[in-house]
Structure formats: C-alpha cells, structure tokens
C-alpha cells in the first residue's frame, strides 16, 4: 500500500512500529463492506453495535439536527466521546472542524480510532485543511470529486468518503459525488502517461497520486459513501456505484425504527448485488427519515461546498 503522501510518524515502541501508513490506511480496509453509523449517546452506540455496525461516529447531534439548530457546530464534548468509546468494542470515530487542528489534537489525546475532518461541522479555516501527516491517529475526509479526494490524501487522509449532502436523507448528491470520483478515475485510465502532468494540474492534485490512480485503477485509499443514505436501497445503490462501504448519519436514528433500519442497512451492504436479499431486508424496516430535497436547500445551507 505505497502512497506518496508523506506520512511521517513511523514511531517505534517496545512492540514494533506504530502509526505507520499501513496501519492507518489498514484500519479503513477492515471497515470495508461495512456501515459506519452516527451516534449521539452511548445508548445509540450500543444499538448500532448490536445492529452490526463496523464502527460508530460519535457526535453531539446528527446532521439533520445540526441543520435545524443552526449556530456553530463544533467537535463533540470530550466526555461524550469518551463515554461512547467505553460503551462499545468496535472502532469509534469523531469529527473535527475543517482546519481545526487543535480539535484533532484533542481527539487524538482521547484515543479515538479515526478522526473525520468534516464539512458537517462549521469550518474553522476557509483556506487550509489540517496537515494530517503528522498525526498518529488516521483521518477520513470528504470529497465531491477526484481532485478533492487526492488533495485530501496528499494532506495525509488515510480514508476518503464522498460527501453527499448530510442530514437531508436525499441520495442525489451522494450519487453525484461517487460518479464524479469514478468518472475521474476512468478518465485518468484513458490518458497517456505524458498527459498526466497537465491533468494533475487541472485536478489540483499531486502528479504522484494521479500516477498512482492510473496504476491502481482506483483511489489509493478506501472510499466510503456518505451524506444522504436513508434506506437499505440507498446503501446498496452506493455500493453498486463503487463505494467500499457507507456512512449513515441521520438515516438511522431519525427513522421510525432505528434498530431495524440499522440492521437492514448492514445486511444490504453485504448483499448489495442481490435484489432478493435487498427486498427481504427492506420488508423489515419502518418509515425512513422524512428528509428534505437537497436541491431545494439555499446555498448557505449546503454543507458539501465547505472545504475544497
């Protein structure tokens, strides 16, 4: 799993080397084919684990409530994140504001398993993302297209998720972003080697990563889908479009029967290509979250445009 993003924290301790690139990007490999669920309490976290979540995202409010509440959305309270870490055995992720490297330092000090530098929170820096290479904890970052994904990887992200439009329950932006990433990859595959440099410039991404995408035929890290998944069908759609797994935010705990919805989405992600199973699991769920059309959002309420 060679990448050229300059991960520089290969520390040796008594057991071996920790925080290597392989170890950071490797945890994301273990989450593949799985569902990462937003949880706001320890009780939610236990419901998610019970339903078969591969990891949980600890935060104070799910994105749809962040939208409703307005104001500034920040890193979750430390005590809440710690409580969630203690209540489950699966990995726990937590969100830091874009560019807020001190929130990230705090989350690393708590010992979370992954940090999501997330557009769902109010950005702390409009020009710069966190330099993630110097951290021992791995990061996941959002993207809308290939260029954005590669810029985040260049900054040290060990996992990518397409952004979608969080808190809407509308899958349209998630689809747009996943298609854009794979469209970008297919475009690179069709280019001659001597055309990659000018294309890298166009993408705003390092040439080395563009070359690596051409060699691999995919992103050099795991890529999940996020922002809008509200049903097992949505989750399977994103898997069929090439996601390695899905994040589900408001879609679970804003639905009528969260435990059933969560378990059904887990099964749908495993059998994403089997319509008979998808029909079966879709029978077990109550009403999905009500949602709101992403295209009807005024520009100021669109989260995906934060950070580029």
């Amino acid at each position, binding site marked *: 799993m060679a990448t050229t993003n300059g991960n520089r924290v290969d520390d040796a301790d008594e057991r*071996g080397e920790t925080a290597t690139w392989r170890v950071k990007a490797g*945890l994301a490999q273990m*989450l*593949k084919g*799985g569902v990462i669920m937003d949880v706001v309490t320890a009780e939610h976290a236990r419901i998610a684990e019970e339903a078969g979540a591969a990891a949980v995202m600890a935060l104070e409010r799910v994105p749809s409530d962040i939208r409703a509440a307005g104001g500034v959305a920040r890193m979750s309270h430390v005590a809440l994140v710690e409580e969630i870490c203690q209540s489950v055995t699966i990995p726990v992720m937590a969100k830091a504001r874009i560019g807020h490297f001190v929130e990230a330092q705090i989350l690393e000090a708590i010992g979370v*398993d992954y940090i999501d530098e997330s557009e769902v929170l109010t950005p702390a820096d409009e020009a710069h993302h966190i330099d993630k290479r110097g951290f021992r904890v791995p990061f996941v970052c959002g993207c809308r297209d290939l260029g954005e994904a590669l810029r985040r990887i260049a900054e040290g992200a060990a996992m990518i998720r397409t952004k979608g439009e969080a808190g809407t329950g509308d899958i349209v932006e998630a689809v747009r972003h996943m298609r854009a990433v794979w469209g970008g990859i297919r475009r690179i595959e069709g280019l001659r080697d001597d055309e990659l440099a000018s294309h890298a410039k166009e993408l705003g991404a390092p040439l080395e990563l563009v070359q690596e995408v051409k060699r691999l035929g995919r992103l050099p890290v795991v890529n999940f889908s996020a922002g809008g998944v509200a049903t097992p069908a949505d989750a399977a759609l994103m898997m069929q479009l090439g996601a390695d797994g899905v994040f589900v935010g408001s879609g679970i705990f804003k639905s009528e029967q969260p435990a059933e919805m969560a378990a059904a989405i887990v*099964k749908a992600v*495993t059998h994403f290509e089997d319509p008979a199973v998808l029909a079966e699991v879709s029978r077990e769920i109550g009403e999905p979250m009500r949602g709101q059309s992403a295209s009807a959002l005024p520009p100021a309420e669109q989260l995906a445009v934060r950070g580029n």
Partner: protein
Amino acid sequence: MLALQGDFREHVATLAALDLPAFEVRTLEQLDDADGLIIPGGESTTIARLLLAFELREPLRARIASGLPVWGTCAGAILLAKRAPGLDRPTLGVLDITVERNAFGRQLDSFEADLEIAGVEGGPFRGVFIRAPAIVATGPAVEVLARLEDGSIAACRDGALLATTFHPELTNDLRLHALFAAMVEERLDEAQERRVRAEELTA
C-alpha cells in the same frame, strides 16, 4: 473468501498474485463450491452477526468438521476460536484457542513487527497488527507458529485450521497465502485418494 464484511478484496488480490483462483462467498451455494475458505479481517461483531443472520454458521461448522481448510486473519481468527471472551455472539468455535479481542488497545496502539513463522522460510515476515487480538491460550493439539516479542501468540495451526492475528493481505508478502494454498491442495489430494480407494473397493 468469506465476503460478508472486511478486507476480502485484498486477500483475493494476493491469491491472484499467486495465480490461485478465488471467489467471494456470501451464500450457502457459494460455500458448497469452496475447497478452502479464508475469513478476512474486519469487525468480528459484524461478521459474527452476519454468519447468524444469513444462516451460514451451522453449515460452515459442518464443512469444517468434515475437513474444510479454513484460515482466519485477525477478526477471522476470533471467529475460529473456541473461546473469545466479550464477543456477544457465538464464534464458529472450531479451533481450540482463547482469543482476547483488541488485546493491544485502540487504533493508536496498532503496530507493525517482524515475525519468525515456523514453516515459512526466507527471513522474517512483516506482521501488520490492526486493533489486533492476541491468542492467549491454546489447546494441546494446536501448534504455535509465531510469537510476538512479548510472548503472545500471533499465528497457530491445528490440522486444516490456520489462525493469524495480523494481516498478510496488507503486505506484498505471499508466503502465508502460499502456505494456506498448500494446505488446501493437500486436503484435495487426500480426498482424491479416498475416492480412488472407495472406487476400487466397490469395483
């Protein structure tokens, strides 16, 4: 390749580098077609639930009882174990070992280390340990293949069952996959011999 959840694609790619055919197993029919099975890294809580939900646990136990070679890496090793304290669903319970989940701590404690593995020639094997379990006890029939410096067991084998707490599929080192392929081959040869003998008897 058991493909309910986890990094099964990396295992398939490693087997492909050895020119070995592999396919993903999610259903009973696919399981029936397998001559050997790798249970990948992933979340043991998730995979244990999916084995039950899709009614694969008992059929898989039956195949293992009749000699199916199985290799579990990390979460896969937990699922093979007879004892995995703290896991809230039953494992397959086929390999006589006790496994402690997340034995080394959280992600920040994940690490890489060189291992000497019995039966694997050609120098140390780079072990990638991610929120890894530790094998803390083994039954008398289980052969320990590798230990970490702190003495905890990182690889072991009992007959056709192989368990590793690390992830060879995240390295370019093909030696353990080749070892498992040899175990599958051996098993197929035995089965073939038995068939020939049975045919001779009935003839």
